[in-house]
């Protein structure tokens, strides 16, 4: 038990090291790339091409295979950022601050995808592109938080002050996540309740559910890939004057 604990502790400390993380991510990125894209294409092709047609919505429902994964990762990325914000504020771990800055644009892009795909799906099914119901509005608030975090970071000259400010803001914005999640239960919304249920039967046929789960899983792998790439690039930017980085670039390692 002590060995497991010290291994985890050692890995945690390594994660906080810019040189270690840079080298680790450089080796890991190709593996995640090779893993992620085949699974993504499997899910997309299975869902969009092979899954059965919906009796009510016809073919338009197939947007679910992009909309739901995008919405899911958008919220999860913010949750991870909020945890990083807490880690930064408490332990001043530089990597945590960098994580927030690197992940915010990724989270924002998938939130935009979720909102636009939702609007495109909503227009033929609900008869409207947009409605100010709880789910849509709280997801729009999520996007605004992402954009404000990116803007706030850019407004500081000092990286430490920027990390501190965005960490606090990210934690404050985390209150929106349970609101998004529970919005369809707490309020009378146009957006349908959760399709996938963990503790009871999902309200979707298995032939449609399985490719959806694969798409969700593949989106998480892709976001992990983008996160590694973004963090590696940001580490390079922050460490470009350090000898370890210069030696790496010039091949003097």
């Amino acid at each position, binding site marked *: 038990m002590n060995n497991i604990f010290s291994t985890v502790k050692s890995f945690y400390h390594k994660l906080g090291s810019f040189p270690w993380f840079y080298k680790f991510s450089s080796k890991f990125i190709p593996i995640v790339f090779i893993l992620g894209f085949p699974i993504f294409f499997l899910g997309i092709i299975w869902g969009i091409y092979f899954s059965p047609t919906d009796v009510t919505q016809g073919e338009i429902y197939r947007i679910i295979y992009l909309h739901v994964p995008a919405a899911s990762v958008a919220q999860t990325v913010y949750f991870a950022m909020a945890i990083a914000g807490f880690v930064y504020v408490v332990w001043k771990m530089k990597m945590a601050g960098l994580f927030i800055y690197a992940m915010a644009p990724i989270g924002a*892009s998938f939130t935009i995808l979720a909102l636009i795909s939702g609007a495109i799906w909503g227009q033929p099914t609900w008869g409207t592109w947009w409605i100010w119901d709880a789910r849509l509005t709280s997801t729009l608030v999520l996007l605004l938080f992402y954009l404000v975090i990116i803007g706030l970071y850019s407004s500081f000259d000092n990286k430490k002050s920027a990390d501190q400010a965005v960490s606090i803001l990210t934690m404050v914005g985390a209150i929106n996540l349970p609101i998004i999640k529970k919005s369809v239960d707490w309020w009378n919304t146009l957006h349908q309740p959760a399709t996938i249920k963990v503790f009871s039967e999902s309200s979707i046929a298995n032939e449609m559910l399985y490719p959806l789960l694969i798409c969700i899983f593949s989106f998480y792998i892709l976001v992990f890939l983008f996160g590694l790439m973004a963090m*590696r690039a940001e580490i390079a930017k922050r460490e470009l004057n350090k000898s370890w980085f210069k030696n790496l670039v010039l091949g003097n390692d």
Partner: protein
Amino acid sequence: MIDLTNISTHLSIVLGLTFLIILINLVIPLRKLKRIKKQVKKIESA
């Protein structure tokens, strides 16, 4: 199974947007890193 002659414009737009977002998230960090490495080589050769 989908009737490919009936694939809606809506689905096509969403698919296109997804691939665009994936491409952007792949290309931007790669270009950023390339630029930084170029900058380091330029500084060191000066």
